[in-house]
């Protein structure tokens, strides 16, 4: 229906249609949140830098750097589940040290509900979202509960976990060696840690490999949960796009359970990121569990910015012809061309596939 719109503008429409189909409602972020809310949860925001201003009461407010926290804060903590999606412009620095910019971000949150189903549905919608962007894509998943039980098993104390997670994110096995000898971890612990984080690839075969590393209750539960997720996604026929990869682990202060990141070949960074964030809910004093993801549409700008061969399909030159004549011609031609640009004289720098000249002088 909107096939003549640029791909960049079609995508949000396509995604909204997918989310609406699954019964998600649009969340509009029309108010601003106080700056201290973001400050307290600074590390939930992956980017540094927030634009602030004072509101009419003199309170320091933030120009929305993020939508998820606002949804978490503003949904009532009832027993009902909430399924919401958003399409908002957020304000943040594009990269560390970069300037502030306005970035279009879409995302989806499933708050409350049954853990197993919400996980399956959100994972499936993440896959469907990637599918709408590119035919070739992967969704890498990991389980925060598995990782924290693994670190329990290996005897890595809480204060050293941040460093360990950073090494896992880098797939840095030689770093794990140094880390283990620094902490004087036992050799079996070190080898287990290294063996587990190097397991990556198709989810099904990786779950098989992981079963050898179900070394405590937490690990076993997490593996079962991933098995359940795999079986659910298989019903939709998208299971081949799921990969296990522990390098997608996220901040345990906010995330627990399944976490994931989506990749397409044409962007250098992940275009989708999300997971179960019950811990964030608790920080806001909410009882319910929640899972969701965000799409970084800004990453796609360059992919979509393919220069067309022509600026317009038809250039209609009308010269001295009257407005009625031009309108009549455009009406007559509009079904035969993808786009029609009417100009009085031949414009400079416009590449047109076809040119029709209807100027009076030409006719006479």
């Amino acid at each position: 229906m909107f096939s003549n719109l640029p791909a960049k503008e079609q995508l949000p429409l396509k995604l909204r249609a997918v989310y609406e189909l699954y019964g998600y409602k649009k969340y509009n972020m029309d108010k601003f949140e106080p700056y201290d809310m973001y400050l307290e949860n600074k590390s939930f925001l992956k980017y540094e830098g927030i634009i602030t201003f004072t509101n009419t009461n003199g309170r320091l407010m933030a120009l929305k750097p993020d939508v998820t926290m606002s949804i978490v804060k503003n949904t009532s903590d009832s027993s009902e589940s909430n399924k919401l999606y958003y399409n908002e412009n957020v304000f943040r620095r594009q990269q560390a040290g970069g300037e502030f910019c306005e970035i279009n971000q879409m995302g989806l949150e499933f708050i409350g509900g049954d853990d197993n189903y919400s996980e399956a549905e959100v994972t499936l919608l993440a896959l469907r979202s990637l599918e709408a962007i590119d035919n070739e894509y992967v969704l890498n998943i990991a389980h925060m509960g598995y990782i924290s039980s693994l670190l329990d098993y290996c005897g890595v104390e809480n204060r050293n976990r941040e460093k360990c997670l950073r090494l896992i994110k880098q797939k840095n096995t030689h770093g794990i060696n140094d880390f283990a000898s620094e902490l004087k971890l036992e050799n079996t612990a070190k080898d287990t840690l290294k063996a587990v984080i190097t397991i990556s690839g198709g989810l099904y075969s990786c779950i098989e490999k992981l079963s050898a590393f179900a070394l405590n209750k937490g690990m076993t539960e997490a593996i079962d949960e991933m098995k359940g997720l795999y079986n659910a996604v298989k019903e939709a026929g998208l299971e081949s796009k799921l990969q296990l990869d522990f390098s997608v682990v996220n901040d345990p202060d906010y995330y627990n359970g399944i976490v994931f990141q989506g990749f397409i070949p044409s962007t250098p960074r992940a275009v989708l990121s999300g997971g179960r964030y019950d811990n964030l809910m608790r920080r806001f004093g909410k009882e319910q569990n929640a899972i969701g993801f965000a799409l970084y549409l800004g990453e796609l700008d360059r992919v979509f910015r393919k220069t067309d061969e022509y600026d317009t399909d038809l250039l209609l030159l009308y010269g001295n012809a009257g407005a009625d004549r031009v309108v009549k011609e455009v009406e007559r031609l509009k079904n035969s061309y993808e786009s029609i640009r009417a100009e009085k004289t031949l414009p400079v720098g416009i590449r047109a596939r076809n040119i029709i000249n209807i100027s009076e002088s030409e006719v006479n």
Partner: protein
Amino acid sequence: MLNIALPKGRLGDKIYSLFSDVGLGCPSMNEDNRKLIFESSEKEIRYLLVKPSDVAIYVEHGAADIGVVGRDILLETKPDVYELLDLKIGKCSLAVAAKNGWIDDGGSLRVATKYPNVAQSYFSSQNRQIEIIKLNGSIELAPILGLSDVIFDIVETGTTLRENDLSVITTVIHSSARLIANKSRYQFKSAFIDNICRELEQRI
């Protein structure tokens, strides 16, 4: 096609010979010319020769799929990439050095360095206040001319320090060349990249 970013210079030559040992040679690399891109269409690889400190930037932004860069640079710029392998060549250390006979009075230090971030985090872990003087080369000159109290720089053999009447006070971090990969490209070329890692690992 796999794009491999290598640092220009002596270290790059060593790394290239390691790659060619595992069958990833590119005949045109041996020609003595000023080209920066070398391609072997049969092996599906392309080498890019870039400034050592830029390798991580090429890889992080996906202009190169993989690359080789020193750990010192990774620590300084913290790029969001996979660090797949320690190649154990190009070994050096990051160290604090000062003029022979310099006495630490315990006050605020003026530190000349190419590595302002690593220096800052090291000295703050030591609870030491410092003033960074960011230089881009010939760091050893700074304490001689009184521009700084100490320097925070890479030390390979120590010859430059000795010849300039400086010596190491503390060695902070050991560094060597690391094989890094772009996070997105890795997802779609993991078989190729993992294979290269395995082959290289056997040679080191």
